[in-house]
């Protein structure tokens, strides 16, 4: 039996069927950012890394900061979606697709930062041909490849029924949708196969996602550099990644809710739940930050203290305290009461967190290199227009990829919403009955 069609589904298909002037304006603006990035990269490619602010001893600056930041944002999608799916959180249904797309888009941008940082991208071939698995950099390459593969698979599988809807209802891109739909007709057997595959991927993707950001942290913590050599860097990075990931997801949701009129699907209750999650992550982030800095301070190792004071009162103090403000003070004040003005408060907190988490990555990467343990002179890092251009271009590229995706596929999962409407009410009722004391649970 064909599932009942919801009239509001047209809202989800509208961006694919029609293109308004807003889309072209957005593409034009993002293209300008990308052009700036391309020009910056062209200059860097021909002149060398000397045109950037990178030098000895500060050899890692914006690019590595962006790499860690973007890989962190990628945790928005697959990981959060998998956790919500496995925990049968029913409110996930309009959110998961948006989250999964963020991961797939941003992970390309994140990994690309390393190519940009190399100066000579052809040297990437050395890693491929002569890589050594003793190096955490190669652990990164492997785990990011696994995460990208898993994320693409995990994005594609739940899209199959929706692609079949597009194949049957839309008059354009018939060939593309027919190929990608894999002959989906919605039979019980096909649904069973798909549900099983999604469940396997959801289980697999969680440890892989956690391993990715742990391994990213190992690039720093496996060295003996002050403020990097820390045993809690793995979980600290994972918490930061999920934190910034949720913030990124919320901002994306709010933008597309406004642009595509998705109020019917993305309700204040979704933002309230995500806001509560964000508050918990903010507290966790503060706990890890406090533990990390207190341990360093208490040890009072001279090299460590140079870096420590450079962040608290030295040249990096504006970034450090702005980070604390953005990641802890603002979220705490915005997210503790979410009964009124929910969307606005959650948006302010999320934007602050995205800025704060970028600053956190910067604060981790640059100060340690500015005060080297080896007898190099101290260095000051000042990014040039090339690094700013690359950063703007990367953000533009991510936003453009995301925007283009929404012109080809529905950004909210149509079949999962239908499934929720048709089956979940009864299923949730049965599940609650099974939790309650008595015989009711035995029947389920």
């Amino acid at each position, binding site marked *: 039996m064909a599932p009942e069609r919801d009239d509001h589904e047209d809202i989800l298909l509208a961006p694919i069927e029609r293109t308004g002037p807003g889309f072209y304006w957005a593409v034009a603006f993002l293209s300008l950012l990308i052009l700036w990035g391309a020009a910056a990269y062209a200059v860097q490619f021909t002149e060398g890394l000397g045109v950037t602010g990178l030098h000895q001893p500060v050899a890692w600056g914006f690019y590595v900061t962006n790499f860690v930041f973007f890989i962190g944002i990628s945790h928005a999608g697959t990981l959060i979606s998998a956790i919500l799916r496995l925990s049968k959180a029913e409110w996930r249904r309009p959110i998961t697709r948006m989250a999964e797309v963020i991961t797939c888009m941003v992970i390309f941008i994140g990994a690309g930062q390393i190519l940009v940082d190399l100066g000579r991208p052809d040297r990437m071939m050395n890693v491929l041909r002569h890589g*050594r698995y*003793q190096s955490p950099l190669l652990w990164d390459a*492997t785990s990011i490849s*696994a995460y990208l593969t898993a994320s693409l698979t995990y994005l594609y599988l739940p899209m*199959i029924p929706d692609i079949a809807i597009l194949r049957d209802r839309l008059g354009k891109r018939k060939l593309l949708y027919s190929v990608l739909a*894999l*002959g989906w007709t919605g039979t019980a057997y*096909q649904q069973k196969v798909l549900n099983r595959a999604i469940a396997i*991927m959801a289980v697999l993707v969680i440890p892989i996602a956690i391993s990715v950001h742990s391994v990213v942290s190992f690039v720093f913590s496996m060295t003996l550099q002050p403020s990097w050599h820390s045993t809690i860097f793995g979980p600290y990075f994972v918490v930061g990644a999920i934190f910034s990931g949720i913030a990124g997801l919320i901002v994306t949701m709010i933008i597309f809710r406004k642009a595509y009129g998705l109020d019917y699907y993305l309700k204040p209750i979704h933002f309230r739940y995500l806001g509560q999650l964000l508050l918990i992550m903010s507290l966790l982030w503060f706990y890890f930050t406090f533990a990390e800095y207190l341990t360093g301070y208490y040890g009072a190792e001279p090299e460590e203290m140079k870096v420590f004071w450079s962040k608290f009162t030295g040249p990096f103090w504006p970034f450090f305290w702005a980070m604390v403000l953005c990641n802890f003070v603002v979220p705490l004040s915005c997210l503790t009461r979410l009964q009124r003005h929910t969307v606005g408060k959650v948006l302010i907190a999320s934007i602050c967190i995205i800025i704060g988490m970028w600053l956190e990555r910067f604060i981790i990467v640059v100060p340690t290199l500015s005060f080297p343990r080896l007898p190099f002179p101290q260095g000051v890092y000042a990014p040039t227009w090339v690094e700013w251009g690359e950063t703007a271009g990367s953000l533009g590229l991510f936003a453009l990829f995301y925007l283009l995706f929404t012109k080809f596929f529905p950004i909210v999962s149509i079949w999962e919403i239908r499934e929720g409407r048709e089956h979940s009410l009864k299923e949730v009722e049965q599940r609650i009955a099974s939790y309650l004391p008595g015989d009711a649970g035995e029947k389920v």
Partner: protein
Amino acid sequence: MAQPPPVSDRLVRTLQWLWLGWAFLLVGGVIIWIVGLILASWRLDDVVQASVGISLVAIPIFIVFMGVVFYVFWGVALHGRKREN
């Protein structure tokens, strides 16, 4: 409104097989790359245990990905359609 021309079923099937082949090529390429690194460390006597240890985790994960993709292709595109018929 003019209807778009119907899509050839044969062409769709061929492109679906190519789509599956591309996925296998991608994952297979990563596995071949990892095996190549093990062989290089073996040849250079360069802490082979590290390469083998990491590969023991990484390679099965990629094989499981391939398995899941093939399972869906088999279940949805091949077997699912047969059952429907």
